[in-house]
């Protein structure tokens, strides 16, 4: 296996948890809700996912547990921000803190145990193709799922009626309400979906990436996922590029060290964040163009008037 091929493989696996979590958050933000609790939901997904897989021996059950954990936390978020019109920023942060603490409690009993990692799916024949074969056809199930998810999301948002409604709700909740659409219900569904994705993204870490659980193993990936959504200008296609770019920077930084290049590692580690700020500035300047603006109602509280 050549070096380039190996690097791409590593990048794909490193980017997958980011992609999964960011995909969910993209839908949430498209609906006009800002859920800063992604890190909390991811780490809960990791803890519960590992617990599920360890206790039952099945990666699938582990993944389902991770999804359930993420959804449960996001349900609390929905109850507070959509049901009780509470400030979204504060609630999201509380969710992060709660998630980190709870995951530590739940996962404490499982530290030091290991499970069988999710197997790589080798599509017969195709995966033996040189170069692209291993990259395209021999990944684990989560990778394919993440890409399928993005495709499905894109189709849903841009090609279905309910996707249009979602965008409408995100851009102008008052008008959407006036048109008779159930704004809060749509947002609740979006939030739960976001929770499921974040939980799955978090579960990927102990189920496939490093098959054991350590408290805090998400190491800030949830915050990066939030940045990714903005980096991608809330567009699903760009999200894939963004996620792989972030993953690439972190992997290449390690390779650069191994190859003896003398760039300070802190600078390389800072690049994704600096890049995000640049992108934020650039796309915000292009306001007015409907494609690149944030959903106009993002983060605003909505209470249906009677």
């Amino acid at each position, binding site marked *: *296996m050549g*070096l380039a091929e*190996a*690097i791409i493989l*590593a990048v794909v696996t*490193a980017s997958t948890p980011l992609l999964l979590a960011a995909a969910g958050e993209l839908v949430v933000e498209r609906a006009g809700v800002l859920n800063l609790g992604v890190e909390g939901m991811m780490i809960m997904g990791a803890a519960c996912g590992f617990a599920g897989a360890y206790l039952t021996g099945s990666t699938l059950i582990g993944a389902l547990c991770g999804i359930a954990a993420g959804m449960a936390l996001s349900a609390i978020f929905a109850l507070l921000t959509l049901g009780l019109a509470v400030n979204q920023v504060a609630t999201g942060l509380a969710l992060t803190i709660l998630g980190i603490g709870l995951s530590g409690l739940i996962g*404490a009993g*499982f*530290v*030091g145990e*290991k499970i069988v*990692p999710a197997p790589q799916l080798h599509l017969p024949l195709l995966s033996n193709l040189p170069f692209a074969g291993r990259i395209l056809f021999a990944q684990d199930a989560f990778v394919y799922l993440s890409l399928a998810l993005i495709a499905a999301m894109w189709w849903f948002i841009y090609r279905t009626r309910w996707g249009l409604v979602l965008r409408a709700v995100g851009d102008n909740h008052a008008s959407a309400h006036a048109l008779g659409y159930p704004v809060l219900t749509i947002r609740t569904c979006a939030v739960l979906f976001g929770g499921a994705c974040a939980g799955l993204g978090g579960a990927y*870490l102990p189920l496939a*990436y*490093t*098959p*054991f659980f*350590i*408290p805090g*193993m998400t*190491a800030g990936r949830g915050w990066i996922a939030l940045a990714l959504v903005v980096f991608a200008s809330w567009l699903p296609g760009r999200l894939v590029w963004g996620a792989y770019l972030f993953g690439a920077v*972190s*992997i290449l930084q*390690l*390779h650069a*060290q*191994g*190859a*003896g290049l*003398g760039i*300070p*590692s*802190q600078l390389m*580690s800072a690049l994704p964040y600096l890049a995000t700020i640049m992108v934020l500035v650039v796309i915000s300047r292009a306001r007015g163009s409907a494609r690149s603006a944030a959903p106009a109602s993002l983060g605003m509280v909505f209470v249906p008037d009677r």
Partner: protein
Amino acid sequence: MDMRNPIFMVVATAAAAALAAGTNVPRAIAQGKLKVGFVYLGPVGDFGWTYQHEVGRQLLVKELGSKVETTYLENVNEGPDSERAIEQLARSGHKLIFTTSFGYMDPTMKVAKKYPNVFFEHNTGYKRDKNVATYSARFYEGRHIQGKIAAKMSKVGVLGYIGSFPIPEVISGINSTILGAQSINQDIKVKIIWVNSWFDPGKEADAAKALLDQGADVIMQHTDSPAAMQIAEARKAFAFGQDSDMIKFGPNAQLTAIVNNWGPYYVERVQAVLDNKWTSGDVWGGLKSKMLLMAPYTNMPDEVKKLAMDAEAAIAAGTLHPFNCPVIDQAGKPVECKGGTHLDDGQILGMNFYVAGIDDKIPGK
């Protein structure tokens, strides 16, 4: 709140009653058992650094349990929180406190000044006081053996090294490894990646992958999680465990591991306190005093096993020193030999140069 307020009285009485019902608040007067405290950096289940300290503590309980009561605090942040944690232990009757990470050095010294009657043992540090001792293990001895094994087992002559931070302990480990490897294969090469953390499984896994992708076939690490071992196992490469025996994570990959063995030291120091013979000092134990052990040599042919065991015995006996003079640095010049035939402890403790044969530069220099 008005103390005479009836609600306050009820609550206070109830709480006092609950307390009296035998919960574990330690400000009760010591019933004669010596209280020993441990401050851990990470969770006890990290299967690495903290885990081995915990194993040591459990040995202490097993051997001296009738005379000793232990307490541990895990996940203690280095910084002002650690000073408070150490002080809490000192205030609550603990007479001997082990602080198990370099970053606790200054907090330990500060608290020690306030509690001259409490004894402190700081791990991997260099500041001492009348009531503060230091202790550490000569990890570089184990590294030297690993270097020899690696040179024998590597088919391509390229080692991969996952470093945490470029501090002397890690640098001396790298140098010792290479010197050991060079004794078998003069042209051994090493690739080094710094993950800037003692413990980050995701990054360690990525680093291991990168090293293997760049052509290394034996992985060594100075980080604390088993992630790299798992990658080596999955990729059918070889690796060395760190802090604890990681064979569970790499049944076919682990050649050996450096196992921190703090237990006997803890028992010895506690016994000294019990006998009123505790004094400050610096203990830097190695293979000879069994402060560190080598995990069973596995996954290697018998002749390599013999080579490793001979080296281990030689180091323990003092006939082989990993830093035997002359030690040549990257510029090609021999380093001053302050220990007679080998570098002295001070030079190893403060090591901040690479030996010849390493192509990289130390970051930050």
